Each structure stands twice: as C-alpha cells, then as structure tokens.
C-alpha cells in the first residue's frame, strides 16, 4: 500500500520536473535557439591554428577562380586538367588592342600582350577534383584557388550551394552573351570529295 502511494508521488514529482525543463526552454526561446537560417545566416568560419602563417599555406583547395583580364588563352590549364572540367574558346584579335564592347583588355598585369579574345572560359566545379594541377602551369598566375594565400585576391568560398546543378558551372568569360556570335569565326566549310569522279 505504501508502495502504491509512493509510486503516485514519484510519478507526479518526476513528471513535474520534466514539465519544468521544457517550460524553461520555451521561456528562454529567444536566447537559446541553435538553428541558423542558412542562406541568410552562416556560422563564422573557425580560425584554426595550422602552425604557420595562413599566407604561406599554399595548398588550400576551395574553389577555382580566374582573373580573366590576365588570361592570355594559352590553354595550359585545360591540358593540365585531369578531369577536363575547364573549357576555353578563343578568337584571334589584333595584338594588344582593347576591345571595350567585349570587355577585352589587350595587356595583362604582367605586361604580356594578349592576342586572343576569350569568348568562353567555363569551369565546371561539379567535376573539379581539386587537384590544383591547373594552377602551376599558368604563365600569368591568373587561375588560382580562392582563399588561403590568395584571400587578398578572392575571398574564400567553399560552400557551392546552388539551386541548380548547372549553376555550378562558373563562367568567367566577359564577352556579353549576345556578342559571342559576333566574335565566333564561321565554321570551315567541309571539302567534299567526289568519290565517283
């Protein structure tokens, strides 16, 4: 009989303890919320101690970025890429001239005169394997990974969250879309071989 009543007493008290905990959480709802509403709010990137300066940490693998004004269209990065995720198309133009309507500047920051106009420079980051191999051959140092030693040039970006998969193709060419046709040379006509003749 004593056990019967102690059971009742115990259940009431323990239930009240549980109710108190949830009520406290409800009352403190404004302070203690852990949810971050992702696209609008982000966690701060943790500062990590890697034993040496961030600037000398040159193997950071985040996202490829191209300073298109410095690119001379040599295709070395395309050849270096093991997964073929870089696509470049170029058109020959007069050496060293600015074509303002195509956002083309004839001289790189290193002083090299450009002889090619880039109509297309796409990097498909959904295919990229972050091997960093395209960075080394670049004669103008214009392709690099964002952040790390390059954070002065381009802020780090490691999220790649897009609504559409095709948004992961980063298009760097500055030639306006409606003018691409204008600078694309006409396709060469196929020479017909007259077999019968």
């Amino acid at each position, binding site marked *: 009989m004593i056990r019967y009543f102690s*059971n*009742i007493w115990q259940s009431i008290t323990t*239930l009240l303890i*549980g*109710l108190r*905990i*949830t*009520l406290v*959480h*409800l009352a403190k*709802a404004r302070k*203690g*919320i*852990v*949810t971050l*509403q992702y*696209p*609008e709010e982000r966690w701060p990137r943790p500062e990590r101690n890697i034993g040496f300066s961030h600037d000398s940490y040159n193997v950071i693998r985040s996202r490829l970025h191209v300073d298109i004004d410095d690119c001379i269209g040599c295709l070395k990065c395309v050849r270096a890429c093991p997964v073929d995720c870089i696509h470049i198309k170029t058109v020959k133009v007069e050496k060293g001239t600015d074509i303002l309507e195509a956002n083309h500047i004839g001289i790189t920051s290193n002083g090299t005169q450009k002889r090619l106009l880039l109509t297309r420079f796409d990097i498909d980051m959904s295919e990229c394997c972050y091997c960093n191999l395209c960075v080394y051959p670049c004669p103008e140092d214009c392709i690099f990974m964002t952040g790390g030693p390059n954070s002065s040039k381009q802020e780090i970006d490691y999220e790649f969250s897009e609504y559409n998969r095709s948004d992961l193709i980063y298009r760097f060419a500055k030639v306006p879309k409606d003018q691409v046709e204008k600078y694309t040379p006409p396709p060469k006509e196929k020479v017909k071989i007259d077999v019968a003749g």
Partner: protein
Amino acid sequence: MELLLQKFSEVSFLSGIPSALLFVFAATLIAVSLFMFVAVNAIVAVYAERKISAFMQDRLGPMGQGVGLHAGKWGLLQTVADAIKLLIKEDIIPSLADRKLFILAPFILFIGAFIVFVGIPFNQHILVADFNIGVFYIIAMSSIGVIGIILAGYGSNNKWALYGAMRSAAQIISYEIPLALSLLTVIMLVGSLKMQDIIIAQHGLIWGILPNWFIFNNPFTFIAFFIFFISGVAEVNRTPFDLPEAESELVAGFHTEYSGMRWAFFFLAEYANMFIVAAMSAILFLGGWQSPIPGYMDSPAWGLFWFMGKAIFLIFVMMWFRWTFPRLRTDQLMQMCWKYFLPISFINILGVGLWDLWLN
C-alpha cells in the same frame, strides 16, 4: 439555435418561407460556421504546435526569411500551404483495401468530433443546442470516433494500421471509464446534465478569494480534474498516449495508408478532439465562460474570451505534455488506467458525496 430561429422569424422578408425550410437553413448555417471553426482551429493549432515544439527543443520551427519570405513572416503561412498541398494531393486507395470502409472511416472519425460541438457553450448565448442531457450527449458522441479508427485500421489491410486500431480500441474504451467517473463528481454537485446549468453553478467566490470553479470546490474535484484531463488526453490519442499511431513502432498507426484529403480529415478530427477535451475540462472544472473575478468582465463578449482563453491554455498544456513525455508502453497504459485512475475515481465519487452531505 433557438435564438437564430427567433431572429429569422423577426426578419420580414423571410416571413413567407415555411418554418421547416428556415430550420434547414439555420442548421446549415450553423454547421458551416462550426466547420469553419474546426478548420481554422486545426490550422492555428498545427502552427502553434510546430512553433511550441520547436521552441521547447531550441529550434525555430517554420520560418520564412529572405527574398519572397518562403512561408510568410515567421512561417505564418506554413499550415495554409500544407492545407493546400493536402487538398491537391493524389488520393491513393490501396488495391487490397476494403474500399467502402476505407473511404468511410475518416468521415466517421471526423463526424464523431464535429457533432460534439453542438453541445459546447462558447458563451452565455453562443450554443447550438442546450440539451437536458448535454454532458451525456458529449461523452456518448465523442466515443463514435473509435469506430472510425477501427474501420480505418481494418479497412487499410495493413498490419500496422490494424495494430494501431486494436490498440486504440483498448485504450479509448479503458480511459472512457475514469473520464466518465470523474465527470460524475461535477454532476453530483450540480444535479444537472445541462451545460449552462453546470457553468452557472460555478458563479461566485469560494474560500473567500478563489472563484467558485469546481476545481477549487473541494479536494476530490481537484483530483478529478486531473484525472479527467489526463484521460481526455488519452482519449484523443495524443502523446504520451499515442500508441495507436506510435510513429516509431507503427509507421503512422491507423492512418498509415491514408494520404491527401482523407488524411487531412484525420488531422482535423484530432485537433477538433483536442479542442473538445480542453473545452470540456474548462466547462466542467474551470467555470466555462465565467470570469475569474466574479462580477467583472461578465458580458457575453468577455464570456467568449474567457472560455476560449481557458480552452486554448489547456490545448497548450496538451502540447506541452506532448513535447515533454515519452510514450507509455501498453501495459503501463493499462496499469495507469485500471490500477490508479479507476480506484481514485471511485474514492473521489464517494468523497464528493460525503462532502456534499456534510456541507449541505
């Protein structure tokens, strides 16, 4: 209802219409407005439940932010969007289900909840019908729902659904007994089953300071209130008594196979039942539409406010229970009902009888 018919008879251009037609018109008007009330209640309660659960777990719940405010400010439109989604969703009936029963079940469950609203007084005047047997009617009609649950479980031809239905039959029928017994204490004190009589009997003060609500009337009714309320929570299959739909064991229990609009009816019924249990507790033990300070703020508008306030508070308590307590096992559930609630309810009845004899 009588009031509405009387108002109709006063309007001149309606005088030519036969009274039977007027009666049908009045009944339809009331039914539609009650249905609107049930639907709005469900939409608001679902939103409140999601928000309360989120805050109790340190989350945000439905939110809208940024461009276009996805679900409105603070996610206010979330349940509206859910309702629209349920309306346009495909209606799936399993090929091996018992078609007629499968279609019938959600409506029986919903009618069981809906028909009870006829007997609930919202304030001094807003009451569809004040029966002589008001409490009895409500207890009887709210038991209809279990038929819907069993039909849903049986008609789905699904083992989880059937398990859920069998559990709910055992649970609802057991908890009906302490529910009715603790309700009897109030009826013994009032001497009437009429809803308005019960509320009017709670007018005035008791012990000098407290309002003369039955929860404060004597220690036995104080215990009876908690037995009534907890049994009520068990009746509407809410956590911690959600064995019929135990989602970690039975997928979704008796409504596993339901989708779209039929599933929405189960949800409407659940939230309508929640309101009924809260409203009944408020009416029987917390003075219904009576103001907590007798004599002040007693007008019908305030009456509606007090009644809704009490009911909404009790609905909040139910949600609070849900997000605090883990689910009971079947044997614990039965033990709680038959070993604890039932004997205590009997002692309560005896105690209230003696108390009433001693004082009067």
